């Protein structure tokens, strides 16, 4: 059984200006111990997908269709009591700038053990023991459990947040831009840590990022999102060496590559669409140099182009 299967997920937001289709018919899956990179520009729906899996959407957001099978059981119809149990033990999220989410007037150890006491009904003493183990796991000396967040550096705070996310041994961990606000050296340290934990604890991982460059060395497969839809999925090799969707190709080109030629890439003309009033057909068509009539008229269906490489594009070259 797969760890996670997301089928035709639709998450819409009700706004004063109408319905915003933040996630619109998105499907992907994840095996135990596998890492998926979800990449796209701001507003493409990658964070909303993650929040849907943990059922942590703000009150304006509603899942209006699809299935999210986490360990075989759908989380969408689950009542809040079940969700509360499954968060932390089945899935936990590390948010962007998570180090700012620590409570400044509570010791770091207390904040971690609180989760263990609440979710595992453990005694204070057991929770403390586990907290110390968790801190060691994320390479923080365990005697620092009694320190306050301001006594930690930025990287240590982020590692403490990872320790907290691991408190109840989740099967799936979602990192929503977990290294974005950090310096490169600390980013490398956190990515090392996440990879080691994934290997040792055989957790599934979804890494959400706008930084395509880090995905090659961190993930097994990649899903590229644009305007609420996945436009292309495949292994790291599929995406970087055999990208089919024009958006994927152009996006890869936007990242400087010191192994490539020193020319500023073309970028992508225009800007991402307004999801309150998305373009007809393929949402990328106004920015796509190859767009033709069918792209304007019809939303492209995802097609398998070999192995697990799936692309949603009308172009003949993309589908072959």
């Amino acid at each position: 059984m797969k760890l996670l299967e997301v089928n035709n997920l639709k998450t819409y937001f009700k706004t004063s200006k109408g319905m915003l289709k933040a996630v619109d018919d998105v499907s992907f899956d994840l095996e135990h111990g596998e890492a998926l990179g979800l990449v796209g520009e701001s507003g493409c729906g990658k964070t909303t997908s993650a929040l849907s899996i943990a059922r942590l959407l703000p009150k304006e957001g509603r899942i209006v269709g699809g299935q999210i099978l986490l360990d075989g059981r759908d989380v969408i119809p689950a009542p809040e009591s079940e969700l509360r149990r499954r968060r932390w033990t089945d899935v936990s999220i590390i948010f962007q700038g998570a180090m700012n989410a620590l409570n400044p007037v509570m010791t770091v150890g207390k904040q971690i053990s609180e989760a263990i006491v609440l979710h595992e009904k453990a005694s204070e003493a057991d929770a403390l023991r586990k907290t110390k183990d968790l801190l060691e796991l994320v390479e923080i000396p365990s005697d620092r459990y009694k320190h306050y967040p301001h006594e930690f550096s930025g990287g240590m705070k982020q590692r403490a947040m990872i320790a907290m996310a691991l408190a109840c041994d989740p099967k799936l961990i979602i990192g929503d831009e977990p290294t974005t606000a950090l310096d490169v050296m600390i980013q490398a340290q956190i990515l090392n840590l996440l990879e080691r934990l994934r290997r040792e604890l055989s957790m599934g991982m979804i890494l959400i990022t706008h930084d395509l460059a880090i995905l090659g060395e961190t993930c097994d497969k990649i899903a590229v999102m644009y305007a609420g839809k996945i436009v292309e999925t495949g292994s790291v090799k599929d995406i970087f060496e055999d990208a089919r969707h024009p958006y994927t190709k152009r996006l890869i080109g936007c990242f400087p590559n010191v192994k490539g030629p020193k020319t500023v890439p073309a970028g992508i003309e225009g800007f991402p669409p307004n999801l309150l009033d998305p373009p007809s057909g393929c949402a990328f068509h106004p920015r796509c140099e190859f767009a033709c009539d069918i792209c304007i008229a019809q939303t492209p269906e995802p097609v398998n182009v070999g192995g697990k490489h799936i692309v949603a594009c009308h172009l003949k070259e993309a589908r072959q």
Partner: protein
Amino acid sequence: MKDAREALVRVDGLKVHFEIREGFLSGLLSKEKKVVRAVDGVTFTIDRGEILSLVGESGSGKTTVGKAILQLVQPTEGAVVFEGAPVSQDREGLKAFRQNAQMVFQDPYQALNPRHYIIDIVAEPLDVAGLVKTSEEREQRVREALEQAGLTPADDYFYRYPYELSGGQRQRVVIAGALILGPRFIVADEPVSMLDASIRTGILKLMIHLRDTKGIAYLFITHDLSLAWLISDRIAIMYLGRVMEIGTADEIIKAGLHPYTQALMAIMPVPGQTREGERPVLEGETPNAAVEITGCKFSSRCPRATERCRQEQPELMEVAPGHSVACFPVQEEHRSSTEHIAGNE
């Protein structure tokens, strides 16, 4: 020494120290004031039409260098020389200097006053400097600046508010504001780090276009080494207020010699490249800039540090034309290899 080869900007032994305000009592009791050595002896030059990138982690002092050049923070020591003359401190001198040197800030969401029309935001430097007399003239200057920044037709933007624009358009408005006085030098502090990848390249192309057509020189401040390589002619690597290595962009990326540069290169992600094993992360953390460090600032984390590195601070030494490194082990290697060559001849 004013000659034709004088650089556009010369920074010489620049230091910026910030005093830390302590509690009243400890302030009375302690004799020495604590200082943060944000910039601690930085020297480099920028030629006309050149792009120099200043690369470093947060707290390395790269933004402070940019601000000190523009006199937005007071240098503690050292000189900033613009077109052969030291930047004047008095009001009139600064006013003239600011027409030639401008800054583009990181966050286009915060750099624009949300209550002002775009035309007033872009025209503000003109108004402050008192350079235009009629509103037609003012409009014309704003029109030119917006067009140069790639916002066309410019008149459509005059009476819009910042919230009506996308991030990329806002950053173009910021650039238009920097361009309106016709500067020869711009300090760009992480100008694209808040923008999406697909929007970034447009801003970078604009900056390069302005360099090519108007000869504007840039100090490009960034934490992203691969971006620095892409856009600049030369790169300076900073760590804790000092320049560790400076050279052409290609030389720094392909043949960086300083152990810190090499450490940054070793963890740099390259799109599409997979990695076997762990990333080689440096030991420890960047020391606090408020603690005085004798010797090389990088010595506490450096895999090659010797006793001398911990005692004495290395200065930049040229190891190849235009490529300088501040590192004793690298400098010694260079000396012995050149002596070796000399001995063979």
